[in-house]
């Protein structure tokens, strides 16, 4: 076994779902890249775009703006994460960068995840640069 651990025990690593917002046809995807020995390199799952607002109240519009910003940051995080995992094929890195789980769920988490991924020390030692006491 090389410098990373093979994922075992998770029944289905391709967990993604189609958005429910509109009538018609929707699509989602997942992809799992493995080396020739079956070791996991990276997993990608689709990320659903936020549903458009259904009212014009400031609260609805603000929610849509925040959701859209979160969506953009989550996409950015996954693009960086996948590139990082591919670049470090065969090396030991945090498993979350290979599996994509846990994925940021809100704006705050997305900001933290992006900053942490950009910081070599933080991603190496699994610490959050915005939470100085070793927060994760």
């Amino acid at each position, binding site marked *: 076994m090389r410098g990373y651990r093979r994922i075992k025990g998770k029944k289905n690593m*391709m967990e*993604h*779902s*189609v958005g*429910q*917002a*509109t*009538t*018609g*046809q*929707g*699509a*989602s*995807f*997942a*992809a*799992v*890249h*493995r*080396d*020739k020995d079956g070791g996991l*390199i*990276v997993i*990608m799952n*689709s*990320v659903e775009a936020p549903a458009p607002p*259904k009212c014009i109240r400031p609260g609805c519009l603000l929610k849509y703006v925040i959701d859209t910003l979160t969506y953009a940051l989550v*996409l950015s995080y*996954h*693009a*960086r*994460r*996948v*590139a990082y995992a*591919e670049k470090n094929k065969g090396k030991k890195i945090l498993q979350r960068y290979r599996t994509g789980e846990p994925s940021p769920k809100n704006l705050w988490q997305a900001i933290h995840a992006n900053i942490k991924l950009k910081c070599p020390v933080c991603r190496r030692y699994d610490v959050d640069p915005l939470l100085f006491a070793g927060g994760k």
Partner: protein
Amino acid sequence: MSQSQKPTRQGYAETAKLVAGEAATKCAKIVAYEGDCAAASEASTYATPAATKSTKSGFAVGAANTVITVTTSFSNDTVQVDHVFTAGEAATITGFGVCNNEATPDVLFAECCFAAGIPLETAETLAVQMKMMQKLGS
């Protein structure tokens, strides 16, 4: 490139033909993409997908491993395509598309662009799954 996925208008039309019993073929083939895959688009077609269709060994158009219906919200409301690409030579894959069942497909049902290019070496695998749901929403 940005991670994105879309069913295509060409796929909608083929689905409509299948429902109407007109000349059409089912979703059965898959092809990997290479080159810049900026964004999956509804306007993509088999002739003009979001990126270049790969012709490399293991990634060229061919029969998908399995195409079945699964349940998302209602029984059998989603088509699920599973396939494992095994690299016969080095390639950087940037997305993939699912196509109809012609000897040379002419309809692209759906496509996706990956979050980043996936460089594969010989004998590495890329397992992919596409779900296309017939949605009943608001």
